[in-house]
């Protein structure tokens, strides 16, 4: 059955960051696909994606994983003869896909509206501060020399809150992932993936997740390193906070050789280095991939950076016995952390952490299935 061409999709995509002067400029020369170091036989991008975008082939786009395979090195945009910026279009397509996987529709709303996203973030920010303001044990604050963080914010309470948040967001994220699985794999009638392949390919997916190995094919090793370092630091921070908060948040000050301290330093360094690298890049706008920034990019980086900064400040104030500053910063730290987790993990940029490896996983599955069929 033939699909109807629908130019209106493009108008929708414009709110996800596709520039009008870009999407309609493409005259289909095929340069971007051929210049891309990651494109492979069978999974070719970005041109075909752009074509589907122009023609409004929604279903085809929703079922595609190609945008996730792109790490945005910018080669395609640099060499595009019509200055159509295919790299940026892939970026926007990833945002759109995130909203497509999200069945709640919240993701699309956050992406499409900068004021809404800012409002939600601000609301959560002040709400967290308010909670602290209401429940904080005021007497504790009267002794500025004695830092008792676990009394100010008892670790089991925070941990409980963490776990609740984890459960809720995991539900959303997992359901979105399932949604993605249905759209990409189940609905694709052309390939029937044998079960055993899932087990075979999952290891490769995990390897890819932790090393972002395919990313290394792109030009610019620093970019790969910054991205990987930021991602790993983030993952480490995430597991510390959610799984080992009791070990991490202590009132005892461990010696510098204690893993709690140096692990914390490395994570903080990764977060600060990574977020600064991307923020400076985006501010300078010199590098092709940083030329255009969506509001979600900025909010994400800003929150990440603030989390890292407040985190290290808490530590500095705490070991220096500055109780008040420690508590205030701690409150701020959580006030930055909560909106970041709530708005980004399931509904925005953070989710690419799972969608991308998943996409690579699915792509590999399909490829191996086809190879199997061919051998038979």
């Amino acid at each position, binding site marked *: *059955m*033939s*699909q*109807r*061409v629908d*130019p209106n999709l*493009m108008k929708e995509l414009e709110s996800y960051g596709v520039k*009008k*002067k870009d999407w*309609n*400029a*493409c*005259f*289909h020369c095929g340069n971007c696909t051929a210049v891309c170091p990651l494109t492979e036989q069978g999974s070719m991008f970005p041109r*075909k994606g752009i*074509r*589907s975008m*122009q*023609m409004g*082939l929604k279903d*085809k786009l929703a079922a595609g994983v190609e945008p996730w395979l792109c790490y945005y090195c910018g080669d395609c945009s640099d060499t595009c003869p*019509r200055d159509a910026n295919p790299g940026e279009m892939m970026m926007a397509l990833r945002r759109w896909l995130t909203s497509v996987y999200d069945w709640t529709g919240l993701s699309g709303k956050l992406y499409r509206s900068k004021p809404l996203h800012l409002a939600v973030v601000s609301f959560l920010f002040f709400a967290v501060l308010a909670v602290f303001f209401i429940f904080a044990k005021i007497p504790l604050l009267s002794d500025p020399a004695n830092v008792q963080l676990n009394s100010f914010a008892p670790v089991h309470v925070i941990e409980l809150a963490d776990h609740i948040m984890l459960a809720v967001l995991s539900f959303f994220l997992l359901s979105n992932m399932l949604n993605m699985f249905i759209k990409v794999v189940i609905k694709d009638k052309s390939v029937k993936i044998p079960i055993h392949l899932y087990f075979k390919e999952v290891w490769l997916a995990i390897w890819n997740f932790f090393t972002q190995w395919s990313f290394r094919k792109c030009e610019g090793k620093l970019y790969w390193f910054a991205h990987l370092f930021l991602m790993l630091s983030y993952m480490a921070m995430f597991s510390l906070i959610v799984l080992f908060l009791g070990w991490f948040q202590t009132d005892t000050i461990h010696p510098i050789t204690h893993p709690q301290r140096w692990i914390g330093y490395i994570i903080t360094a990764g977060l600060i280095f990574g977020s600064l690298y991307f923020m400076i890049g985006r501010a300078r706008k010199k590098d092709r991939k940083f030329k255009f920034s969506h509001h979600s990019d900025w909010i994400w980086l800003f929150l990440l950076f603030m989390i890292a900064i407040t985190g290290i400040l808490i530590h500095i104030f705490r070991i220096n016995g500055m109780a008040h500053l420690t508590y205030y910063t701690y409150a701020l730290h959580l006030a930055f952390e909560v909106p970041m987790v709530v708005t980004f993990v399931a509904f925005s940029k953070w989710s690419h952490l799972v969608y991308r490896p998943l996409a690579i996983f699915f792509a590999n599955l399909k490829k191996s299935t086809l190879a199997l069929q061919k051998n038979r």
Partner: protein
Amino acid sequence: MEEARIGIYVCWCGSNIAKMVDVEAVAEEMGKLPNVVVAKNYKYMCSDPGQDLIVSDIKEHKLNRVVVAACSPRMHEMTFRKALENAGINPYLFEMANIREHVSWVHTDRDKATKKSKSLITAAINRVLYHDPLDKRSVDIDPATLVLGGGIAGLAAALEIAGSGKQVYLIERSGALGGYAAEIDLLAPYMNSAAQVLDPLIEQVQNHKNIEIFLESKVTDISGYVGNFDAKIEKKGKEVEKKIGNIVVATGLKNFDPAVIDRYGYGKLPNVVTAMEFEKMLKIGKVETKTGKLPKNVAIIHCVGSRNPDYHEYCSRICCMNALKFANQARSILPEANIFDLYTDMRAFAKGCEELYTQTSRKDVLFLKFEKGDLPTVKKAAAGDDCDMVIDMHEALSGEDIEVPADMVILMTGTEAHDDAKDVAHLVGVSMCGNDFFIEKHPKLDPVATTTDGVYIVGNCVSPKDIPDSVSQAKAAAARILASISQGSVEVEVTTAEVNEDICCGCQTCIKVCPYTAIGYDEEKNVSIVNEALCKGCGTCGSACPTGAIRSKHFTDVQILSQIEGLMSLEV
């Protein structure tokens, strides 16, 4: 005939010839041949002293034939002919033997090279014995010019010629000047107004004292040859005769009729329109469907009737740019509509056109590619659909089968030769290619002249082209005509063919082989007659003539046969 007195001159060309050919021995031996009065060798025959040597020998020794053995005749034949002329004898009583390019530069054995030179010179001597004096001939050119067609090309040619003060007769089959350009509103790629430029042009033509316009007229007969044509012009039943020197054919094109292509539904679906029909809509600012609604979806289909072996294999050259123009204007008049452009290859090649393509695509025009043999189909939309028609197509750049919604479909119809092309070709004596377009004398280096001298073809009757290219061609023809008019006469080929009427049997074989239609037939005498104004001297007729009645001047049978004898008089 007076006795032949031949002078032989062997050139050294510095050491170029002398190194490989014993020029002194050659000259000496040649001097012994009958009829040879003088045989000399000299360092540089082409130099002034070398030429002076020939001139003074002609005078002193009363030479009446000259042979120079030197370089290629392509290099210096003209030089020596001039020298002969200066000495007072006919320049055609001269022959050159090429002993540089064909001997000294290509051979390595001095003896053999010397021998070869001798045989080449002997051949030249044999040949020159039979040379006839030939006179330069020219025909007078009537300063008036006939321009067939009052379209943009015809107007440009007429103005260019009349601007120099010469008479032009402009013939137009319809009732108005301007041709297709007059029906066009804006011109791609710069979107300037056609009327604003064309109207003053027409006004200039109409008011020009040197241009006589014949509207609703046609030429019924043309006779004569370059410089001296007689044209019979029929204007509303009345016939006028005009004497003219040159003819510009600018009879233009016709638009392809898309009704013959079923799949586009032209004539059946009310909102499928041709390019010209859409042009009219734009001109009056009324881009509406037949029911008076503003179309929400406009689709433009390229290559209608062009690049298609079923209709015309050629590309019509102008439709792509016209389509881009339409897309632009449709966008401007319908800011909210979806505009689709269904193309095969976007041929935006002229100055400013690729830029227009870029600009157009940036105005949200969606370009969809179909493959040459895989055309889209227009059909009525199902009841309840929010569009009037849908176009089914295989989109080549995505590989998808898609349907395109449309409320208005514009067919970019190609161009084809005008209905009267055959009549015109017959009238003026030009040939046509398979597509009924006229054939130029040389597709590269002589794109406006034809094999008939004095007849020029310009604009769309030669092949589809846009306005600047048509105008360039019209002016190119004007240049040719102006040059000949201002000379007052044109030189015609001297070495033409001639018929010996006593031997001609009237078989007319020669007429069939002549590529220039230069040979006619005299019904009364039953012989062929060469029109020397048209003959180019290729000699094909001479070799086809079964009785030997045709002589190719300067390449006569006896000249060549005796040249062969001369060549073979020495062994290798």
